[in-house]
C-alpha cells in the first residue's frame, strides 16, 4: 500500500500543482501572454503540433547523434588514456578546458566554421556531452582490480585480452553512469546550439521555435515547446537508467 502510494506520489503532486496553477491563473485573470495556464498550453500544442513535433524530432536527432558521437569519442579517448600515460598527460588538460568553456561561448565560432548546420549543432552538443563519458570511463578503467590484472598476466594475457576481457567490462558500470549524465547534457547542448544558430537565422529544432514564439509573444506556444523539452529530458534519463539496470542486473556490485 505504502509502495503504491510512493509510486503515485509524483503524479498526484504534479496534478495538484497543475490544478493550483490553473486555478490561480483563472482567479487572478492573468493574461496568457504573461503566464498561460496548463489548459492554454495544451491548446497551443494541439493547434501547433504540426510545427512543434517536427521541431522536436529535429532536436532529438541532433541529441542522439551527438550522444553517439560523444560515446565513441569518450570511450576511445578513455581507452587511449588508460593505455598511455603520455597520451593522458597530453590530452587531459585540453579535455578539461573544453569542458569548462561554456558552449554558448564557442557555439558561434563552430557555426561559422562548420557550414553544414546539422553537423555544427551535433559538434556543439558533442562537446557538451562527451566529458562525463570520458571521465567516468577513464575512472572505471583505472579502477580495474590489481589482483585480476595479476591473474591475467600470470596466464600470459595479451594487451588486447586485458582490454576486452577485463578492463572494458570492469569499466561498464562507470561508463553507464557517465552515459546517463551525458544523455541529458546532449539535449542541453543541442538546445543551446540551436539557440545560437536560430538567432543567426537557421531555422531548426525546438529552441528556434521558442525564440520565434517569444518574438511573437506567443507565450503558450513557448511553454508547449518547453514542456516537450522537459519530457524529452526525463524520458532520456529514465531510458538510460533502465538500460543500466538491465545490463548490470546480474552483476555482483561488491
Amino acid at each position, binding site marked *: 500500500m505504502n509502495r503504491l502510494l510512493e509510486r503515485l506520489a509524483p503524479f498526484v503532486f504534479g496534478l495538484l500543482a497543475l490544478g493550483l496553477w490553473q486555478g490561480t491563473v483563472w482567479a487572478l485573470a492573468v493574461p496568457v501572454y504573461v503566464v498561460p495556464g496548463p489548459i492554454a498550453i495544451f491548446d497551443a500544442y494541439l493547434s501547433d503540433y504540426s510545427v512543434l513535433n517536427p521541431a522536436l524530432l529535429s532536436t532529438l536527432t541532433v541529441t542522439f547523434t551527438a550522444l553517439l558521437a560523444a560515446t565513441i569519442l569518450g570511450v576511445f579517448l578513455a581507452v587511449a588514456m588508460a593505455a598511455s600515460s603520455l597520451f593522458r598527460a597530453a590530452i587531459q588538460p585540453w579535455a578539461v578546458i573544453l569542458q569548462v568553456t561554456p558552449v554558448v561561448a564557442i557555439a558561434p565560432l563552430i557555426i561559422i566554421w562548420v557550414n553544414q548546420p546539422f553537423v555544427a549543432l551535433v559538434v556543439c552538443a558533442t562537446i557538451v556531452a562527451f566529458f562525463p563519458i570520458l571521465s567516468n570511463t577513464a575512472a572505471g578503467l583505472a579502477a580495474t582490480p590489481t589482483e585480476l590484472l595479476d*591473474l591475467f598476466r*600470470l*596466464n600470459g594475457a595479451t594487451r588486447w585480452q586485458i582490454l576486452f*576481457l577485463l578492463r572494458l567490462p570492469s569499466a561498464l558500470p562507470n561508463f553507464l553512469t557517465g552515459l546517463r549524465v551525458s544523455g541529458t547534457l546532449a539535449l542541453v547542448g543541442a538546445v543551446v546550439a540551436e539557440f545560437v544558430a536560430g538567432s543567426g537565422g537557421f531555422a531548426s529544432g525546438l529552441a528556434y521555435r521558442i525564440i520565434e514564439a517569444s518574438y511573437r509573444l506567443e507565450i503558450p506556444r513557448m511553454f508547449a515547446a518547453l514542456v516537450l523539452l522537459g519530457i524529452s529530458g526525463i524520458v532520456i534519463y529514465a531510458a538510460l537508467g533502465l538500460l543500466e539496470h538491465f545490463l548490470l542486473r546480474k552483476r555482483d556490485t561488491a
Partner: protein
Amino acid sequence: MFSLRAVSKQFANGTRALDDISADIKAGEFVALLGPSGCGKSTLLRLLAGLEAPSAGHIEWDAGKQPGPGDVGFVFQDATLLPWADAAENVYLPLRLRSRRRAEVAGLIETTLAQVGLAEFAGARPKELSGGMKMRVSIARALVSNPLLLLMDEPFAALDEFTRHRLQEDLHRLWRETGKTIIFVTHSIYEAAFLASRILVLSPRPGRIAADIRTAVPEGPDRREGADYIALVHQVTETFRQVMPA
C-alpha cells in the same frame, strides 16, 4: 621443485620486505609460509609467481619446472571473480586466455568444478554465491590449467570459522589426492599446522626464515585434535615467542 638462494626484496621506497631467504622446496610439498602481518610472506609469493623480481639472490627452478604462462595457479585473499561471468566462465578464463576453445575444455571445466564441490553451480553468478563458494570457484580457476605450482595468499582469512574449516579440510584432501606443490601464506598457526606438510616460520619485517618445520600430524578425522597436532602448535608458538619483539 625450486630453490630460493639468498633471496632479498627491497622496495623502491626503501622498505626491506625479505632478507636472505634460502630454502629448497620439493615437488609435492604443502608448504605454509607462516608469519605476522607485514613480514613479507605475500611478497615472497609474488616473487615465486614472477610478478616481481628479487632485489638480490635468485630462484633456481629444477630442470623442466621453470613455470610458463598457466603453470602457476594463484589464489588471492579475495575470490576476485569476474562479476559479470558465471562460475563456469570464471573457471574457463585461464584457458580462454591461452586461446583454448570453450567446447574443447567443457568437460575439464565440469570436472574441476566438481573437484571443489560446485558441480551444481556452473551457471551461478558470483552475486548468487556465498563467500565460501566464491572461494571454491577461485580455487577451481587456479586448478583448471593443471599448474605445476599452486600459490595461495591467505585465501580463507576473510571467511567465517565454519566455512574456513570446511575449505581447509577440502583443500588438504585435494592436495593428498593430486599431489600438487602448494605454497600457502597464512598468519594462523592452527591453519598452518592443520594444512601443511612443512611450515616455514618467518620473522617480522624484514622477513627471515626463523624456523623450518616438517610436520608429522597423522591423517584422519581427528587430525585437528590429536596430540601431534597440539605439540606442533606448541612448537610453532614457542618459535614465535623467540622471534617476536617484546
